[in-house]
């Protein structure tokens, strides 16, 4: 430890090795970025010692500049498409290709060990290229990506000799029915994480069993629906040390031998803290899981519509240590009451809709209020529901002031408070007022400019805001842009915000990662003005309509606009239907 005495110590007396050693302990990206801004010498030392880099928008920087600045890079995280691409608002060919990154990294001397991608287009070619280019490659995490097939996975399996982590989360993968699992060589014994839950096709069960047998370090295993219960039982026999388990299809006759073996093997799995899967579920088989429940901290039942009513609540009643719960709305308000009285450690809850029709959602404000009364540690919420009231939101805000993420989705997006028939301005106002640490907010319901006034006034830590069908005028958007100093991502659909709001403080966008506006009131002329005045922004107009011709009428409203700051100018890989102004 270094003494800091009352005398001023001149920082440049520290030898580089000492600084380097100090920086080793600084791991957060934000802190590292701050460190690099202190002075030239710190910038230099920091950049040589940086191993992990996070790039929130793959078009904000080029791979060449990344490689030039951080020659010691080992782990890269890249995000591609904007968030609303998740909801089909961005055409598949828009962009976000990982190939150029892999190509550039392969050419350099970078010893890449980890690649984490979100919303990017990943081809089989890029996976194969990746697998052959980096001897020490250890970890591949793909979230919401597309463009690859199981052939690409086969290349990763076959060529990455020290692979520790293959984690596929909610990707759209084409199943070629090749035996990718069999491509892991016998010598591969290093797996720690294997998650293929999102694959739709059949799995070579024998190959899977052999792989698990020779992976003594396996801690996380998430199976897809094609893995039946009796295979699950065999796998768990070989891997009782698992910490995170995703079952496959969880269906069997409770009187079967496989099921009784499963029951006893679950009792040996004392380390499981995280449980998911249950793509098909036989409610009568859930009692096998009870012994694990008491230690669970994460439970994901959001793909199990077959589990509801008593079986579901019985299961939850065993989970007293739960911190994160992902569930379908078939749990109902009453079910949330059970969660509230059982899961006192709960921090994160996600309630997904099980039926997409607007009149059919099962949750109301009652469930949320019950939850807030029982779980004061709640800090992250995603809640799809039928209706919400201001009174409920105010109660929730007061009961749970620790919210960091608050995402409410009323399936009928312009629904007012059904009790008072008022807009939900006051309710959301209370959320931003009481939850002083709020970083992410998504709003729905009938909302006027007033809610944005509240957000601008109170949401000082807000970094990401998602708006749909809200606001009356440009004032609304201006309240937010002027008030939320830490705003990084703003995404808006179908709201009455136009050029006046867009153009008032254009410099603000350089302090943000991106802005998305679709079906709003901004015109082509407004976007052109913005693009002209702000050369360090890339202003994209995405035009999906039948006529590929972009209208030259500046008064024409723009269907979709996506703008982001960039240090490398306009991207060269945009498709015909994207016009970069």
């Amino acid at each position, binding site marked *: 430890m270094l003494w800091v005495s009352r005398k001023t110590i001149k920082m440049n007396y520290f030898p580089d090795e000492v600084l380097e050693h100090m920086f080793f302990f600084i791991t957060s990206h934000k802190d590292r970025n701050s460190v690099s801004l202190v002075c030239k010498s710190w910038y230099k030392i920091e950049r040589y010692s940086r191993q992990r880099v996070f790039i929130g928008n793959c078009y904000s920087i080029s791979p060449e500049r990344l490689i030039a600045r951080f020659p010691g890079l080992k782990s890269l995280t890249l995000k591609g498409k904007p968030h609303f691409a998740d*909801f*089909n608002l961005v055409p598949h060919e828009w962009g976000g290709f990982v190939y150029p990154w892999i190509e550039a990294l392969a050419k350099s001397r970078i010893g890449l060990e980890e690649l984490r991608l979100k919303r990017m287009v990943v081809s089989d070619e890029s996976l194969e290229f990746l697998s052959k280019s980096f001897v020490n490659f250890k970890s591949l995490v793909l979230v*919401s990506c597309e463009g690859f097939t199981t052939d690409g996975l086969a290349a990763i399996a076959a060529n990455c000799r020290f692979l520790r982590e293959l984690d596929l989360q909610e*990707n759209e993968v084409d199943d070629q029915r090749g035996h990718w699992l069999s491509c892991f060589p016998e010598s591969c014994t290093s797996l720690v994480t294997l998650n293929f839950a999102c694959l739709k096709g059949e799995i070579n069960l024998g190959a899977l069993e052999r792989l698990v047998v020779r992976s003594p370090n396996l801690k996380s295993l998430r199976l897809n629906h094609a893995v039946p219960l009796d295979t699950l039982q065999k796998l768990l026999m070989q891997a009782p040390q698992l910490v995170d388990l995703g079952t496959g299809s969880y269906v069997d006759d409770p009187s079967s031998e496989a099921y009784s073996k499963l029951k006893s093997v679950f009792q040996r799995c004392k380390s499981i803290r995280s449980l998911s899967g249950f793509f098909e579920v036989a409610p009568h088989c859930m009692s096998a899981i009870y012994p694990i429940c008491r230690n669970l901290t994460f439970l994901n039942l959001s793909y199990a519509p077959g589990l509801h009513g008593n079986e579901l609540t019985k299961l939850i009643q065993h989970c007293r240590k739960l911190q994160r719960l992902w569930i379908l709305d078939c749990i109902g308000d009453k079910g949330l009451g059970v969660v509230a009285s059982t899961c006192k450690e709960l921090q994160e809850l996600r309630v997904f809709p099980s039926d*997409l029709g607007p009149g059919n959602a099962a949750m109301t404000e009652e469930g949320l209020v019950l939850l807030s009364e029982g779980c004061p540690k709640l800090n992250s919420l995603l809640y799809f529901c039928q209706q919400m009231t201001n009174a409920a939101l105010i109660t929730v805000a007061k009961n749970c002031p620790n919210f960091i993420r608050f995402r409410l989705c009323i*399936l009928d997006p*312009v629904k007012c408070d059904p009790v008072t*028939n008022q807009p939900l301005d006051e309710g959301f106002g209370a959320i931003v007022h009481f939850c002083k640490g709020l970083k992410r907010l998504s709003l729905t319901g009938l909302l006027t400019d007033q809610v944005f006034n509240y957000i601008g006034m109170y949401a000082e830590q807000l970094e990401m805001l998602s708006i749909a*069908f809200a606001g009356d005028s440009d004032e609304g958007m201006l309240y937010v842009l002027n008030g939320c100093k830490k705003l990084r991502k703003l995404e808006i659909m179908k709201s009455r915000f136009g050029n006046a709001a867009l153009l008032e403080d254009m410099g603000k966008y350089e302090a943000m990662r991106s802005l998305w506006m679709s079906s709003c009131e901004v015109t082509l002329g407004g976007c052109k003005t913005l693009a002209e005045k702000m050369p360090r922004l890339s202003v994209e107009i995405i035009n999906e309509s039948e006529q590929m011709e972009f209208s030259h009428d500046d008064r024409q409203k723009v269907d979709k606009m996506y703008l982001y700051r960039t240090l490398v100018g306009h991207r060269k890989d945009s498709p015909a239907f994207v016009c970069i102004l």
Partner: protein
Amino acid sequence: MEGSVAYENDLHLKATELRLGLPGTDEREEHAVSNVRNNKRPLQEGGANGKSDSQNETAPPAKAQIVGWPPIRSYRKNNFQSKKNESEGPGIYVKVSMDGAPYLRKIDLKVYTGYRELLQALENMFKFTIGEYSEREGYKGSDYAPTYEDKDGDWMLVGDVPWEMFITSCKRLRIMKGSEARGLGCGV
């Protein structure tokens, strides 16, 4: 706040009006939905949906078509849709006979969303008209009455029980004609 923006006075051109449907959706639906946005006064009671009755029939289909709504990842949506189709399983095929017709037909009850659609389909299939349904008097105004055999083997008049109950208990359909039909419709 309530009085500040009066949508009724805005000079919104139809073309630029924000709607919840895609271009080309039903004019009626468009009107109904824009009422929801424009009208800050109470939505009518009646069902958790809070929508007035005239909107009930048209609102759901157009809503389902709004691109980007509800905000659920396509991966999850696709997963859920395919599960829904799987869980619904094979169709519910029942025989349909019509008095006087030379041969029977078969229909899949799952294809229809309610009585109105079913009866319309039967009318088209056998080229006849069914009368107006009323609880008191059955089908008035024509010589025909749609009936079905339920799980207990009894012949029931189509339309008395909720649709969901009907499709699970219907074993076969028979369109009765003439005096027999009228007899069924009258009170006991």
